[in-house]
């Protein structure tokens, strides 16, 4: 029997900047100040992301967001946020080193993830701009679908990243796993 056509492509995403942002969305000053820095509003719908320019913000919880930026921008954005929010009760922490993102793409991408995730990954439900923290196998991850195409980003804690990649490759075996890590 012929080798199956590559149905999945796995890639390690280049390092990126990440900022863990906490604050009270009910205090109007907070979202306003953040929007002032980012140039757009924080997503308030659970499990969605919003992005513009070089920044993407993912909803993590009712008072928690993850801001993704270019690697080189992390410190600067964190600094600007901290300055924009001086008197507010909030928390800004650079966490870009703490995790590694993988991109899982191709026609069988969702199937590879579904082997380890209980989220409903139906493209009509987990739509572009959706994100969710959940478990992949036994690893806590953040899943994000940035656009309409079948590209998913899986962000795992740094200590789990080798295992996570190993797991993903193994899961992709049956669909043909193009390109190893890059």
């Amino acid at each position: 029997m012929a080798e199956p056509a590559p149905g999945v492509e796995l890639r390690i995403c280049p390092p990126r900047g990440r900022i863990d942002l906490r604050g009270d969305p009910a205090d109007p000053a907070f979202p306003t100040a953040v929007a002032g820095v980012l140039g757009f509003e924080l997503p308030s719908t659970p499990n969605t992301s919003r992005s513009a320019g070089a920044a993407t913000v993912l909803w993590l919880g009712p008072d928690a967001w993850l801001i993704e930026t270019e690697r080189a921008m992390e410190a600067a954005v964190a600094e600007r946020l901290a300055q924009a929010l001086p008197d507010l009760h909030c928390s800004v922490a650079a966490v870009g080193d703490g995790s590694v993102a993988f991109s899982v793409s191709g026609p069988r991408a969702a199937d590879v993830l579904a082997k380890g995730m209980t989220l409903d990954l139906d493209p009509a439900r987990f739509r572009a701009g959706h994100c969710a923290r959940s478990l992949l196998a036994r690893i806590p991850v953040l899943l994000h679908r940035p656009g309409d195409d079948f590209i998913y980003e899986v962000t795992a804690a740094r200590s789990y990243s080798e295992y996570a990649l190993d797991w993903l490759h193994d899961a992709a075996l049956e669909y043909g796993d193009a390109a190893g890590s890059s």
Partner: protein
Amino acid sequence: MTGQPYRLAEGGAIDRSRPVGFSFDGRRYTGFAGDTLASALLANGVTLVGRSFKYHRPRGILSAGTEEPNALVQLGTGARGIANAKATRVELHEGLVASSVNCWPGPRCDLGALNDLAHRLIPAGFYYKTFMWPHRGWHFYERLIRRMAGLGRAPEGADPDRYERMNAHCDVLVVGAGPAGLAAARAAARGGSRVILADERGLPGGTLPDAADTGRLGETTAELEDLDNVRILVRTTVTGYFDHNFLIALERVTDHLGPHAPAHLPRQRLWRIRAGRVVLATGALERPLVFANNDRPGIMLASAARAYVNRFAVLPGRRAVVVTDNDSAYGAALDLHRNGVEIAAVVDLRRNGEGGKPAEARAAGLQILAGHAVVDSRGRRRVRTAHVARLDDDGSLTGPVRTLSCDLIAMSGGWNPAVHLFSQAGGRLRYDEALRAFLPEGAPQAVRCAGAINGAADTASCIAQGRAAGAGEPDDRAAGRVEAASRAPWAVPARNRAGEGRRFVDFQNDVTSADIALAAREGYQSVEHLKRYTTLGMGTDQGKTGNVAGLAILAQTLGLAIPEVGTTTFRPPYDPVTFGAIAGRDVGRLADPVRRTPIHRWHEEAGAVFEDVGQWKRPFYYPQDGETKHGAVARECLAVRNAAGVMDASTLGKILVCGPDARALLNRIYTNAWDRLEAGRCRYGLMLGEDGMVLDDGVTACLAGNRFLTTTTTGNASRVFAWLEEWLQTEWPDLDVYLTSLTEQLATVALAGPNAREILAALTDDIDLEPDAFPFMAWREGRVAGLPARVFRVSYTGELSYEIVVPAGDAMDLWTALTGPEHAVTPFGTEAMHVLRAEKGYLMIGQETDGTVTPLDLDMQWILSRKKDFIGRRSLARPAMRDPLRKRLVGLETGDPATVLPEGAQILAEPPSGVPEAMIGHVTSSYWSPTLGRSIALALVQGGRDREPPTVHVPLDDRTVRASIRDPRFYDPDGVRMNG
């Protein structure tokens, strides 16, 4: 014919152009693609397939499906062996190797059959009544009995195959792709729902007896296959129905391909399905009749006989007696007849063999013996004769017994709707007198039933019910029901009082109607007692064919109505599930996640031995050139004491605590006070559970006014984070604090030893390391080795020590700089760290503490604030916590300095005098101290350091060691070194 004497020349759904060679019990045979092992064996005239569990009775093939109790085989060999495969479910592939189970030397002649001769001595539950003499005799008997245990054999090696698990979601899950299921799937799909349709067979179409209808179903199947919103899973048994419409299904992906399976595919896949609604269209399973010697090879279910001729073009026999208590077997009789099987008679237990079906049979020239029963059979390896007698209205036998010669008895004792999954879902069953069956009634979950599972017997009503269920339309479950015989006895009476000729109810476990009566007589009258006393329904088939007859016979014996007796509990799985498939890929390399620090590679290359701490891999020690563990640890310790060492402490938990109420939170969580900790300073903290027991410890630094960085132990990192969050969210939502875990973001390297300052000085130019400028328990920000870092002057080793914290991405650079040859720094592992801290008398969470130790027990009153409340404080006020006899932490010094006590050694006040000894404590930590050149130990001992006299005794395997209690600080008790 290719040596398949019982194969028809045409018909059936097999592919005669593809002969398939296989072997059974060492002999080679040929079947066709599309055969099951059972159909291929029958085609070759093999009827004796194995032996039963208890009596080792010769057994053949009873059914054509999942319900098979008899035809179990050992499949494959070596590491790929499979025990107890159902021949009726094994799809034939080239090179298949199978053999009988539970017989020696073989199924034709089996020594175990001695049990059959002794059967009178070993009725149900006999083992409870004997083997009790002499007193310990059971040890001996058990060994003999265990030899008889089990059916098939476990494989001989690790499993070479892969298994997958897959999560799936759907709006409608349809179980069963017979007429009802296909109709349900189509209706649901047309309505736009996401549908999964699963069937255990290789093709959709169900058990439809009539080939003509199969074509129409083919159209439905084709339509479904074209739809994007439908996923059809074949060879997929839905086998467990759990809470909140979660179901599991086992897909046999490559089992049917044997050695030709493509390597990239898993052997099996376990589906984990979350369904909005479930439609169960699982059909019905035919029941055997209970008569004497109803278990011989060649006696099979009528529906099975029919399936073998129609589907597989196999004659299950050449001359058949068909015996039934309902109409359905007439179809089988006619199909057998049409295909050339001589029908010796259709024996109908019902008085009047009238109605459409019998008339059709009569018109075809079949002899019908209405009001008769098969009462016995003869034939060893294959049935030879059926014995038929008249059955009276009152259920007794009258008149002469006629002997009909035959090589097949096709029987039907009615139908059991396949309500297993429905019942697993929590659904209630109702006994239907007319149908003599348990039918689905109300269910607490979103589940509907359609087709034969509701008692519908004709295809049209099955389809109608399926359509309605799929579309979510009103339920007409009553449609299409055909009443079975009402008064036929559940067990045909025995011919004589002696009860000769056992009447089997559970074929696999050899449970007879007499066993059921015996259980009832002895008081095992609940159906659950019956099951456990007789093992009825406890075999690999879980009583799919026998259970209802069994409980009916119990009801009859007790004079109760069947619903009063009820069924036993239906449990997952519906059909056995491979362990490997349940584990999926959580085995071997992927068995559990491995967590690695950013410096892991370096440790590996340096030859570190790793220790598992939770999921982390931590360097335990770094042996050099053949060093033993002892040697390496001693070298590492001395290096720290005399020069400098570095340790990867990145696994420690780190939590950013920030907000106006951060101090308030720390005050409530930790036992000590945090009001006055200034930016730039650190403090050690201890936290308790609300029960007063020590939970965790660690250092917290004030980063700025209300920003703190708290560290936790490695093992408790996530637990402590969760603990703080829980209090904040559930009890103290008024506190304005945000927590962020920085465990993964920050890496920590501990640099310890008298040379530490000097080394660090060489690597930083913007941190003033002078003791006055940077005292013990302070922290500074700056660049170390050119990297932005926070340096904490804390010490767990008792030496001058700095913990350098950098973003994880910089950790390798930092480590490389520190371990550069110019610094002569020795990497040390967790074991050296344990020794060094024990020399200082520092506690280690999880070693000195075990969830039963309070700070009072650790003589840590100094850390308990008196000015505030904190979690666990009130519990410490219970009188028992201050009991002077509680075990408290001490140092222990052995009389002989060379003796290292084993950790966990128990401590006695007096030399041992005979068990039971009164133990007064145990050794919590114990090491050879290379620094002191002697052994040291920490222990928890009643009375602690107040104990008089301070001498205790530690019994070891071969001797007892005397030791004396002392201050646990063995080394530098005043902390001169780390403060310096």
